[in-house]
């Protein structure tokens, strides 16, 4: 979808910022609605079809996080969400799981906001086509047994903008990353470039937003994203104790045979065409 065809809802309790954001978006000739807080926004969301929600977090009555949670609870169609705020006290992992696509720090530039908007309006097919020229800042190459282990974890979940996976070394937020994940049961692998959006040290989980998908894996990744539109932008992953979901060598696969039958392993899910775990959002908490 083009920006000019989109309807954007701007939510901020600061009238002057609301006015500025609206003016910026107006210059991009999209339709702009505004709300002063989460409650007002909720009324508008229930009434209108909104493509992108641009929201502040700290607001009276109902704050941004509360708004996004309510949207999910009410089962409203979820637009792309962009948070614009300071994020000192916000759990990024939960935000991306709730469907937030980008978190922009105030103060911000017009082109950053418009860039994020355009990105979020793009169809998956148009996304992640070109690799970055500059080398990535870090590189992760792991093997994951996607069949559930005894603790019920998968170690890998896919959202509509990225993935989360078990990883026992700290990854710094904001770093670009070369990601290579092998799934030995299926002979598939994920080759991607992305950006680390969060790392949870206690759970040893990392969340990465995609920037480029290698052609050899692009097919199955997009297919998985489409089969059931994920709510989570990056799933928050399954927490089952530090390292429990760990990167598994194939040696760990033997114990997973029984679990294979419940159809939740990656290969089983591909065979059945749909799997809530693998497209994120449905992961157990």
């Amino acid at each position, binding site marked *: 979808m083009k920006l000019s065809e989109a309807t954007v809802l701007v939510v901020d309790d600061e009238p002057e910022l609301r006015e500025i954001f609206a003016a910026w978006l107006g210059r991009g000739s999209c339709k702009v609605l505004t709300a002063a807080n989460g409650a007002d926004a909720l009324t508008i969301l229930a009434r209108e079809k909104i493509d992108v929600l641009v929201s502040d977090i700290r607001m*009276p009555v109902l704050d941004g996080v509360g708004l996004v949670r309510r949207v999910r609870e009410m089962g409203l169609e979820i637009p792309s969400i962009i948070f614009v705020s300071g994020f000192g006290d916000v759990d990024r992992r939960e935000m991306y799981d709730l469907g937030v696509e980008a978190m922009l720090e105030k103060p911000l530039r017009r082109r950053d906001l418009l860039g994020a908007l355009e990105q979020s309006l793009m169809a998956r097919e148009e996304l992640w086509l070109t690799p970055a020229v500059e080398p990535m800042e870090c590189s992760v190459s792991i093997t994951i047994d996607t069949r559930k282990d005894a603790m019920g974890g998968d170690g890998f979940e896919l959202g509509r903008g990225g993935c989360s996976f078990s990883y026992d070394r700290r990854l710094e937020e904001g770093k670009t990353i070369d990601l290579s994940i092998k799934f030995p049961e299926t002979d598939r692998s994920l080759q991607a470039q992305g950006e680390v959006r969060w790392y949870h040290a206690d759970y040893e989980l990392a969340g990465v937003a995609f920037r480029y998908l290698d052609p050899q894996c692009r097919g199955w990744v997009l297919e998985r994203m489409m089969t059931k539109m994920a709510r989570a932008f990056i799933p928050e992953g399954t927490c089952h104790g530090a390292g429990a979901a760990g990167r598994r060598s194939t040696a760990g696969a033997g114990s997973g045979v029984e679990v294979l039958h419940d159809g939740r392993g990656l290969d089983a899910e591909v065979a059945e065409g749909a799997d809530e775990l693998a497209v994120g959002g449905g992961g157990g908490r």
Partner: protein
Amino acid sequence: MQDFAGLTRDVAFLVYPGIQRLNDLSDVLIAVAYFLLPVVLVKLVRGRRDIPRRGIFFCFIALLVTGAITHVMAVAMPRPHADWLNSALKAETALISLVVLVLLWRLMPSMLALPSRADVETADEHTTSVLESTTVCVMAMDSEWMVNYVNRNAQALLKVQGNMLGMTLWEAFPVDNAVIRQTLLDVMRTRQPAAYEKYYQPLDLSVTVQAHPWNDGGVVIFFSDVSEQKRMQHELDWERVTREQRIQVLARLSASIAHEMKNPLAIIHARASDLAELAEEEEIPREEVAKTCASIVRTSDRAMRILRGLASLARQGSKDPMQKAEVREMVDQTIELVRGRYQTHEISLQSMIPDGLPRVECREVQIGQVLLNLLNNAFDAIDASPDSQRWVRVKAYVEEVYTDGAVGGDGIDWLQIDVIDGGPALSPEVRENLMEPFYTTKPLGGGIGIGLSVSRAIASDHGGDLALHECDGHTCFRLRLPVRATKSSEVAA
């Protein structure tokens, strides 16, 4: 020779019977004296325990006793027997005399070394002058705790009036502290020194004390006044507590302050970058530029106000000199710090400060801290209860000639700042404990409960007070500060 002498004596006795009687009487008297002299010697030796080589006295006693016996024999026994016994006793006397001679000879140096009375007095004076000139206070007690010496410093420090000598320590200074009393008793009993610190309330005195056993069987107490150090320590502690409380309040505010700062910055940033971007693309109308710049100036003023309030609070404030300050400015600065949080939670915050209030002499940082504590408490009270009316009012006014006994009204007006909130009424239990340190009604992590007690201490430090009132059924904290009236200049700040 003996016979010859005996004959001579016997002839004399026969010729003059009076001589016989005088002789016998003398023998009896000498015997009595010789028997009594050892008693005196024993008493002397017992009384002066510092006399060296006491053995010699027993030799003297033995000599005297044998002497006494010879004289008794001379009177009581018939001649031939007496002569025998006399000879034997003489032999013994000779022996003891030789021993005494040797002992006495050897004893001579130490006898000569015994201080004379004059020596002792000089030494005594010397000791006393040392004890009198030392800066340490000295007080000596005998084994019955009877005070027998108090040096000049001690007298001055303890404000001794009249004579303490002859009183027991416990009479002179009722020792209420059982531990200290026991310590002193232990020193007396075990003869081991002890040291402790003590605050003596009647004189507002802090002392460090060393109690030593003394070789007269009593105890000497050395003590020094450390009240000044204690006061300084107390001041430092107090300063630390207020500072920590302020930092705590600031820390609580920091998230909302960061947010408060981000919005104006975002506006300024957006306006300025917009302007720059537009300027590259096209000619910008003058009024557009003016409007944008006005917005930037307005917004940066807002940010400055927040920062000013923050900076003034973050500063060390307790050492600041008292200075005249504008009430409205102080209140506004503080309000600016919490406004964002109030707005976010939809609590209206109204300040009602009339024009023409007198300036009040205070430490601005500390008064800011008090106001911030009150505003935070009001916020918490309202936010914690669904029954609250969501408003807080800050009122300032001057109450003239306020008389309440202790602080008279003459010359002093009181500036009163009321912080009234629409939160639920406080229960009697809460009202009673509210000002106590570490009392808190807030859930764990909400605060440690020193805000109000620190605030009240700050108020009284300023010669005012902080009290809980009720205004039309609402909770009202009233901070009162003295305003020095122009007519009276001698009122203490």
